[in-house]
């Protein structure tokens, strides 16, 4: 029947399509959570701990409650005391602290008042008596005996430990012609989303609680709210608003503000809104894990990797968030994009009295790729192998099964390398650029959604309206990356309608199907497959009616430009709308399609690390050219050229936006961004002092090129794979390699500040003089 799974010409897909919500956003009409106003609505504010580690002895809110305009004050004792979190073994978070605070900025109490200023004034009137406890900020210190303990159930402050071993690392190192060890360090980096977290909670008088909020993964929030409030999930409704950037900066889970909006509403009977300031966004948890990565690699003399051994120490901050998976993923991704026949991975994520860490675009793959591709460049140099050649010699190929059990379908890594070499003019530049100008190469890989132990299946539902348009619902959210558009495109492709004929609704747990939501580059592949199925389901129903009416075998019908056509005799056709109406009005049919994609037939063993974590994997390569000012050490990024195998790009315009966005975030990570903390206190909690790159920090568009290496991924909907994260993974190493090429300074810790580069150059000059 309507099987369009062949690489035929698309009707809708593959054409650069502007985001459907662009007009609303450009006109300022998109309603974000902070734009919501309800009759009688109150405004909430959160009181935060000034101490990195302290016991709460007593809280007296009487003065705050007496302030005119204050309607309610709540503390941790107003909640049932049930800890919530992502992974069952790491549930360590409370809606508000009850007896202990573990980082500066942790939420201690909340106020609802008639306006924001009154609520904030009331915060100053809450008297909290703390008994200050010794604090620890460095993970190595935290692991030592006698260090302050953050959580009773985690001796040694180890919040998560993971290890895996495939092949025989010791034997392989013994055989290796060449072995080297390096240590790399990375810094805390924030997501930098422009919309701060915001929510409105309403707990009606009949036990039903509704939260409107900018959530990436509303169902994860829904479940966590039920956990922390200790009520039935069915009594909670989560309604997604527009999301002004996510990057896993807290919008993927329930936050203290969400619990407090609901609890304050329960106390007051009024809707309550909470909005974080940008400063709050920057001081609270949710950031990329700072890491220390020890990496040992053994190769043959022609540069083939025989073994890699990694020890990783992650500074997790005060709570777990998704951190257990974060370090697991870092280990799993050692297996891509190079063949590593023997690998060993040992990692600890350690609690410290800092804001806690979790995911951020590229998750922990970014740090691993920085370490691995920086080291690979040193290996190439030591063995006198061309840096591109050493990558080709080790590149994973289609059909490979990695040591840890990743089954690779499509992986056009070689072609990515070749394209970048061409676009960047690599062979005309490497070693031939003027002094203080350099070019570097970096590679990485990503997965298209991870199969987790919990819930990983995506679902979609579609309902035909009488005018031939459809309502499409999934549990996945548009966080600015273009999900609304690409899901509508997939549905339109199958149904033979236009993108605008598909109405993609936001997630509302009362109406949309269950789905883990947006994270881990899963949406295009997982939800896309579900949407495709749902559309095919509707087509089947329509073909049945049309076949009957046209006297044709339904299997011969195809859907094309608002018509249903007999593929065997194309003159036989009728309009889609006619069939929809006939079915609805005359036969009383409901055209409703469903689809799901689980990809969970095989299990991953999270204890050993073995298993096929994702349905598809994508490689990336990039080259960066820099100029370094020899007087100040400042880096100018002159050009960036990247190539990715994102399968078949369904919306090339959105793919371009995603890959450039990912690359830009990595430039920020490499050169500028650093959440500076002194004794647990964030020193730069503003976007003035937390420095993200702006347009003038980036190469001009003429020197910022990207190429899609098009493959047809059998697991993807219409051949597609992820595009939003992989493209950023190779950039940091490429920059480090370029700085090295320009100056001879090899930086192994981030960010690569002008100061580090300048003093590195001075050390080299001193060494050269000494020789």
């Amino acid at each position, binding site marked *: 029947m309507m099987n369009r799974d062949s690489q035929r010409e698309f009707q809708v897909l593959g054409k650069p399509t502007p985001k459907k919500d662009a007009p609303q956003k450009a006109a300022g009409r998109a309603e974000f959570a902070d734009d919501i106003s309800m009759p009688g609505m109150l405004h909430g504010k959160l009181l*935060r701990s*000034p101490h990195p580690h302290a016991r709460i002895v007593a809280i007296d809110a009487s003065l705050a409650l007496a302030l005119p305009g204050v309607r309610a004050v709540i503390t941790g004792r107003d909640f049932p005391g049930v800890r919530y979190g992502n992974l069952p073994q790491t549930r360590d978070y409370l809606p508000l602290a009850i007896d202990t605070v573990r980082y*500066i900025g942790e939420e201690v109490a909340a106020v609802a008042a008639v306006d*924001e*200023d009154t609520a*904030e*004034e009331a915060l*100053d009137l809450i008297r909290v008596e703390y008994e200050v406890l010794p604090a620890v900020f460095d993970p190595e210190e935290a692991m030592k005996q006698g260090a302050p303990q953050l959580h009773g159930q985690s001796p040694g402050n180890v919040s998560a430990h993971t290890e895996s071993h495939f092949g025989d690392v010791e034997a392989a190192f013994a055989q290796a012609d060449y072995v080297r060890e390096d240590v790399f360090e990375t810094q805390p980096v924030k997501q930098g989303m422009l919309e701060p977290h915001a929510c409105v909670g309403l707990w009606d008088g009949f036990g039903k609680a509704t939260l409107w909020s900018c959530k990436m993964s509303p169902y994860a929030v829904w479940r966590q709210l039920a956990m922390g409030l200790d009520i039935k999930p069915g009594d909670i409704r989560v309604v997604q608003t527009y999301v002004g950037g996510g990057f896993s900066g807290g919008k993927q889970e329930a936050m203290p503000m969400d619990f407090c909006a609901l609890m304050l509403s329960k106390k007051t009977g009024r809707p309550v809104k909470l909005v974080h*300031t940008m*400063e709050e966004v920057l*001081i609270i948890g949710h950031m990329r894990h700072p890491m220390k990565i020890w990496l040992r690699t053994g190769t043959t003399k022609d540069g083939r990797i025989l073994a890699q051994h990694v020890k990783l120490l992650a500074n997790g901050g005060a709570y777990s968030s998704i951190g257990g998976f974060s370090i697991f993923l870092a280990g799993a991704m050692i297996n891509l994009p190079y063949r590593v026949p023997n690998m060993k991975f040992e990692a600890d994520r350690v609690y410290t009295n800092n804001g806690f860490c979790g995911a951020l675009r590229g998750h922990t793959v970014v740090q691993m790729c920085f370490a691995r591709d920086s080291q690979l460049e040193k290996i190439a140099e030591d063995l006198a192998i061309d840096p591109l050649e050493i990558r080709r010699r080790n590149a994973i190929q289609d059909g490979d099964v990695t040591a840890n059990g990743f089954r690779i379908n499509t992986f056009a890594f070689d072609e990515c390398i070749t394209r970048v070499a061409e676009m960047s003019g690599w062979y005309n530049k490497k070693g031939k650029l003027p002094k203080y100008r350099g070019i570097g190469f970096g590679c990485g890989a990503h997965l298209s959604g991870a199969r987790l132990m919990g819930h990983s299946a995506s679902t979609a539902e579609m309902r035909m309206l009488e005018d031939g348009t459809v309502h499409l619902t999934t549990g996945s959210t548009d966080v600015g990356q273009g999900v609304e558009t690409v899901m509508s495109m997939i549905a339109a492709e199958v149904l033979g309608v236009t993108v605008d004929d598909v109405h993609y609704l936001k997630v509302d747990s009362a109406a949309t199907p269950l789905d883990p939501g947006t994270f881990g580059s899963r949406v295009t592949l997982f939800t896309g497959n579900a949407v495709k199925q749902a559309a095919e389901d509707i087509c089947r129903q329509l073909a049945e009616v049309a076949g009957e009416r046209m006297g044709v075998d339904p299997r011969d019908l195809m859907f094309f430009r608002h018509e249903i056509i007999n593929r065997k005799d194309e003159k036989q056709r009728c309009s889609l709308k006619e069939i929809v109406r006939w079915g609805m009005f005359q036969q009383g049919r409901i055209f409703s399609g469903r689809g799901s994609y689980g990809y969970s037939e095989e299990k991953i063993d999270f204890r050993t690390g073995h298993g096929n974590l994702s349905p598809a994997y994508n490689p990336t390569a990039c080259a960066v050219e820099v100029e370094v000012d020899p*007087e*100040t050490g*400042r880096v*100018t990024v002159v050009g960036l050229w990247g190539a990715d195998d994102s399968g078949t790009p369904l919306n090339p315009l959105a793919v371009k936006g995603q890959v450039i966005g990912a690359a830009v975030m990595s430039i920020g990570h490499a*050169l*500028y961004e650093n959440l*500076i903390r*002194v004794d647990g*206190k964030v*020193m*730069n*909690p503003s976007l*003035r*002092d937390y*420095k993200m*790159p*702006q*347009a*003038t*920090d980036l190469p001009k568009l003429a020197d910022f090129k990207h190429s899609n290496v098009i493959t047809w991924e059998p697991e993807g909907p219409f051949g597609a794979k992820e595009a939003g994260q992989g493209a950023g993974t190779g950039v940091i190493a490429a920059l480090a390699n370029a700085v090295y090429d320009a100056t001879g300074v090899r930086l192994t810790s981030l960010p690569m*500040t*002008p*100061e580090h580069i*300048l*003093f590195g150059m001075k050390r080299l000059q001193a060494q050269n003089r000494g020789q």
Partner: protein
Amino acid sequence: MTYLKRLPRFEYLGPQSLAEVCGMIAGTSRDEVMLLAGGTDAILQMRRRERVPRRVIGLKGVAELDFVREQADGGLAIGAMTTLRTLLASPVVGRRYDLLRETAAQIGGNELRNVATVGGNIAGALPCADMSPALMTLGARIRLSSGRGDRWLPLEEFFPEFGRTVAADDEVLAEISLPPPASGGAGTYLKFHDRHSMDMTVVGVSAYVVRDERSRTFGDLRLAYANGAPTVFRAKRAEAVLRGRALTEEGLEEAAETACAESSPRTSWRANGEYRLELIRALTKSAIRQAWEKASSRQEARP
């Protein structure tokens, strides 16, 4: 915690004339009363509770403090409430004081320049202020007004220590006055920050060169620094190194070394003192060279 809070409560006064302002601050202390110019620093200070004044006197209604005027002697008078945007748009500034234009253009973004004022940048007395080094090298004098009358003093004598000025509690910075640009004079302001886009100054160097056309030597040289010490300051010993000499690499090195010796930059989480010294060394040389080249090309371009 010194994180941002809502604004503290204060009484707001909106005088319309300088005389009114002087009347309002007469007999008050700095802790009691705060003058508010553009507010780009002051509002943050209040929100961090670094300053909790009982009374805030907003100067934006005082029209007589908002002007850029050419003087009869060929000099320039700038009202303290002149915004950076007004300064940038002023034809005379563009034509005759491009060092000022160059400096103002490097401060913040458009939104900030629309409200930030020249007077506020100076009177805030922060070592990272960008306008002060440029104005100092242009030989700026400032007028302090009070109910007792006016007094004039060189800008370089305005900052006795970090965060302080020599202005008495009843005085307000009203005007900045510049002498006519010297023949053969040209200046440049080099502001360094890690990122290329708008950012806080790590080190700023203003160099003003008066080139003696006949002898092709430095007739005069003035150097002033942002973040080179606890206050903006002039490096007079470094200036003296090059006066009367031609431009040579050795001369530049020597001047830069001397400037470093005169500086005492601090270490903070923004940058280490050691690195700031390296910047002072490098930027001093570049700034002098660029100012010299500007002065030379102007002399050559002259008919």
